[in-house]
């Protein structure tokens, strides 16, 4: 096992790391108070002055930033760097309203690359690996982010981007890909396409590592991917606002390490906004401690997760955030009950009779919300007897009802008939008109 990419930082004693975080925070806030009209104004509104920040815990006095701040200040009004200091733009797909533009200084790109270099090394990659980057290249951050991160650690990059799946599988065999970076749903799609081509990713390729992210996925999905494809699958987390994919799990697979010199994570109770103890699920709030062009302070990123503050078995002292278990804004309210699509995924993964793809259709029948979950019947589970198929449907309905506490209709559909996603999966169709 290789050592860390940067042991001085990654294995820094926790107290030293906290001191470093405080210094970085204080520096950033003082700078923004002087040079960011937006954040200056927001601090004035909440009656906070940089002098009020006397230790790391005082971060709680600072005002939040929201996704809508980025949209309202489109395209670049939040930037504290001038255009001639920027070396790149990325633009996120505006699924809700306007797109978000992120600018990068040279230092921003460097920190992004370093963050990924640390993460990729922490899951066992390095020189000699061939990394197929099957995230989209272009305005989306996934492709270029992983590209430079993998190059930095001395891996050989195969920049396939998304799509043309059959060719990707041929190249995977011909160029002896050992690691792939893509969305978990695209990797599942690849596995299916490979099987149709008569290729077993497990037996006919050298693939052994998957760096999977850009959409929520579950522990069950990890097990299924690992068993089926014969690889180790690691969760990677990030959004364009943070720079892109940033934080990756280590070989322990117990959540992604958030590098404390780059970011500070709080987990808050979504109702009271009070901090939650280690291990409890809540709303994740992120402060980027070194980001130059587009600063993010106490950013309400909208993801639900929990933090583990204990020192990792891998020796790294930086806190780990558990896989994202939902989005504050993806949450569906069905007959008054909060439902996260990730809970549905989690449940379906534990039922071998149904496939890994699903779609949720929400509608309103009369005054009542109605949720339909479509699932594909696995080939092995297909029975010629209607009663057996009805039994599968009942079983799925029953399990979902137990987990979600709300009645769900299940529809069995033909294998391959549900949409496959090459980018972010859109699994919810909400037809309610309220």
């Amino acid at each position, binding site marked *: 096992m290789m050592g860390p990419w940067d042991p001085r930082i990654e294995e820094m004693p926790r107290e030293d790391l906290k001191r470093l975080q405080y210094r970085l925070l204080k520096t950033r806030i003082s700078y923004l108070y002087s040079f960011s009209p937006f954040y200056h104004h927001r601090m004035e509104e909440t009656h906070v002055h940089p002098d009020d920040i006397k230790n790391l815990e005082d971060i709680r006095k600072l005002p939040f930033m929201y996704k809508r701040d980025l949209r309202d200040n489109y395209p670049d009004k939040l930037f504290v760097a001038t255009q001639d200091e920027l070396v790149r733009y990325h633009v996120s797909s505006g699924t809700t309203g306007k797109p978000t533009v992120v600018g990068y200084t040279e230092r921003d790109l460097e920190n992004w690359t370093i963050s990924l270099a640390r993460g990729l090394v922490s899951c066992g990659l390095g020189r000699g690996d061939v990394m197929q980057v099957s995230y989209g290249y272009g305005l989306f951050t996934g492709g270029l982010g992983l590209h430079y991160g993998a190059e930095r650690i001395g891996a050989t990059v195969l920049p396939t981007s998304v799509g043309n799946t059959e060719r990707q599988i041929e190249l995977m065999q011909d160029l002896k890909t050992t690691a792939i970076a893509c969305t978990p749903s695209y990797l599942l799609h690849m596995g299916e396409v490979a099987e149709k081509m008569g290729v077993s990713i497990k037996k006919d390729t050298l693939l052994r590592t998957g760096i999977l992210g850009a959409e929520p996925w579950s522990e069950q999905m990890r097990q299924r991917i690992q068993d089926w494809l014969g690889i180790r699958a690691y969760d990677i987390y990030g959004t364009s606002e943070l720079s892109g994919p940033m934080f990756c799990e280590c070989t322990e697979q117990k959540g992604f390490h958030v590098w404390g010199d780059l970011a500070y994570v709080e987990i808050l109770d979504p109702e009271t906004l009070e901090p939650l103890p280690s291990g409890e699920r809540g709303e994740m709030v992120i402060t980027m401690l070194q980001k130059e062009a587009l600063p993010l302070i106490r950013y309400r990123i909208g993801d639900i997760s929990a933090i583990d503050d204990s020192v990792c078995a891998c020796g790294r002292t930086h806190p780990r955030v558990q896989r994202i278990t939902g989005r504050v804004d993806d949450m569906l309210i069905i007959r008054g009950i909060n439902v996260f699509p990730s809970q549905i995924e989690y449940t379906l993964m534990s039922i071998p009779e149904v496939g890994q793809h699903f779609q949720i259709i929400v509608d309103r029948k009369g005054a009542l919300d109605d949720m339909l979950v479509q699932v594909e019947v696995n080939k092995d589970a297909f029975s010629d007897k209607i009663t057996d198929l009805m039994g599968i449907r009942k079983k799925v309905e029953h399990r979902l009802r137990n987990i979600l506490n709300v009645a769900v209709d299940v529809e069995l*559909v033909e294998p391959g008939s549900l949409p496959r996603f090459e980018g972010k999966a859109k699994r919810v169709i909400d037809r309610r008109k309220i």
Partner: protein
Amino acid sequence: MKKNAFVIKQISVFSENKPGRLAAIAKALQEEKINILAFSIAEADGFGVVRALVDKPHKAHEKLGKLGFNAAFTDVIAVRMKDEPGGLHEIARVLGEGKINIEYAYAYSGKEGAVLILRVDNVESAITAIQKGGGTLLESSLFQ
């Protein structure tokens, strides 16, 4: 005559209950020049199972699988019936007395008489019961 000579491989296909699905299955079989000897559709809420006796079951299974259909083989038996009042009763009585449960059945009557196709809970004892009761089973080689 060995008992398994009477076991016929029926092809069963999972299908969503929506327009065009049967046409898609039938077209696939046509393309492979597969003849359908008998078939039925069982429907439930939102989905159905198409069951067919075809002359080339392995070819049908391969073709449908390639097209992404969920297809499987099911063992059934076919019993010749008299094409006259009481023909069905004769066979059903034999099975009932033999304590054989019928899971599903469908039938056709053509030039050579009437045939009842059955999926039963225990194929071997069904064959024995029918033979003891004087019924005639069709060999799978007649179809396939």
